């Protein structure tokens, strides 16, 4: 780690004993507060994301998990009147410091959105390579190689390898979402943010996406927002439970679900509200 050791000001229950300083952290969010106008959506959240792990963010609708996820990629830059305070470090560099051009960091952090959003005018091939081509990578050999590699990683290659010139919009919803994963992976990011990537998909497509996530974990640091607690259990190593903009509990997934420290967490994971 190149950053100074983090002091967790807020009592985020026992996160310090599951993630010790020996662990290698890819990203650290420190005292992040996000507000839209006067309304605060995320309050003073501190989280560390271990390299090559999957961290799930769970919580009821409107608890700020998506808002928090988007700040890890500076996606709030586009939203007028959204304000982000605190620090988000990636590899020890503060993403929100004034000298940083967010463009370079977004290339390090890929993002998959809730609804599949392949570019409507582009073919499957062009969608996957969009991030590269539009940044000036022209070498056909490199592009071909990356298309095959990323589509295989996203478990889509076998279904589309003969139709790469087909409009992406003709794929099914689940295929489109895996295409979006491939597109995000094509820029060779190190972190992958996923905002409820399976919420619009059927169980089979969901299973495929989850397999993809498990496979990707070997190489990437993944942060996933999900509504689905079983999904969090299946795919994630660590889970953060958010409620009304607060990070209530953040621990190893198994422990959070079997032995929650916080009463609210316990009620939520037992399905008593949500």
């Amino acid at each position: 780690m190149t950053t100074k050791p983090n002091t967790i000001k807020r009592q985020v229950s026992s996160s310090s004993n599951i993630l010790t300083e020996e662990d290698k952290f890819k990203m650290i969010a420190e005292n992040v507060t996000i507000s839209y106008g006067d309304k605060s959506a995320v309050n003073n959240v501190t989280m560390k994301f271990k390299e090559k792990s999957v961290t799930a963010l769970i919580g009821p609708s409107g608890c700020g998990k998506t808002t928090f996820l988007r700040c890890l990629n500076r996606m709030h830059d586009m939203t007028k009147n959204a304000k982000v305070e605190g620090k988000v470090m990636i590899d020890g560099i503060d993403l929100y410091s004034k000298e940083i051009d967010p463009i370079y960091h977004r290339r390090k952090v890929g993002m998959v959105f809730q609804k599949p959003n392949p570019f409507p005018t582009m073919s499957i091939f062009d969608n996957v390579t969009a991030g590269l081509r539009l940044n000036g990578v022209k070498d056909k050999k490199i592009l071909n190689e990356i298309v095959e590699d990323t589509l295989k990683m996203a478990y889509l290659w076998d279904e589309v390898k003969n139709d790469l010139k087909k409009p992406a919009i003709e794929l099914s919803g689940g295929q489109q979402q895996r295409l979006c994963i491939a597109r995000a992976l094509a820029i060779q990011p190190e972190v992958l943010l996923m905002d409820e990537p399976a919420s619009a998909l059927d169980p089979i497509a969901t299973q495929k996406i989850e397999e993809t996530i498990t496979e990707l974990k070997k190489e990437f640091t993944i942060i996933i927002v999900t509504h689905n607690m079983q999904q969090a259990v299946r795919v994630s190593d660590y889970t953060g439970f958010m409620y009304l903009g607060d990070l209530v509990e953040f621990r190893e997934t198994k422990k959070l679900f079997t032995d929650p420290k916080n009463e609210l967490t316990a009620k939520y994971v037992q399905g008593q509200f949500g």
Partner: protein
Amino acid sequence: MSINKRQQYRTLFKQNVERRLFVDKIVRLIVISCVVTAIIPLGSILVEVFKNGIAAISIEFLTEVPGSIGSGDGGIGPAIQGTLIVIGMASIIGVPIGVLSGIFLSEFGDNKLAKSVRFFNDVFMEFPSILLGIFAFLVIVLVLGHFSVWAGAFALALIMFPIVARTTEESLKMVPVTYREAGMALGLRHWVVTIRIVIAAAKNGMVTGVLLSVARIGGETAPLIMTILGSSLFFNNFDTPMDALPLRIWRLSLLPYDSAQLQGWGAALVLILIILAINIGVRTLVLNKNDTYRFGKMIKEKIGGTK
């Protein structure tokens, strides 16, 4: 709620449905009659122009300079040439300005400057075209001391760019924000996202806007009277008067000779055909192939689905 009450509500809702079906029929009738009312004048104009104009069309009519007044000789060659030149020049000036303003308004338009630009643009769009002609007359014709092609192109560009700006802005705004986010998340710069993703998705709407504005200026007469004046000769240079189809139609239709009026009908038909050709040509060349494909597929599915 008691079971009885539920039953009461069910009857009530059923009555509602019957009433709604009736209203639906009435509204459908009104809509269809409105469409017919709108199509009748359009269709009858087209039919009339074709019927009267087709007799005037000949190679000579399309290529030669006008003959002596009332003789029925000669053609509208200079007018056709002039219309193409003035539409082309006005588009070269008006389309880039319009498209760029539209992009500015849609993508960077969340500030005071953009709000006032949008307001003036709307006002401009409503301006009577003769006023823009007089404006071009004042700032170009009077300053240079003679009527010119430049002045005509300038006046038409003034009519064109607010239309293009508005339609561009509207088409760009229709592109869902999720595509912009996807582009940003790939680490692309704002302008790259705008040009390669947002504009690519909005292209069809933008092209339609440009074609609308071309059709609009193709038929403008008043500003041309104030600027290119009209001529019986082929285009010579940009500093002299020139002919154009609307001017020729206007002149011919005022003459008290049947032969001249016939030529007027012919010229009107030619103008309509030119605008139609530009429309079809540009659409086939520029429009997204994927979109047509999707549209075709959609229709196929519709037909297949309701079999």
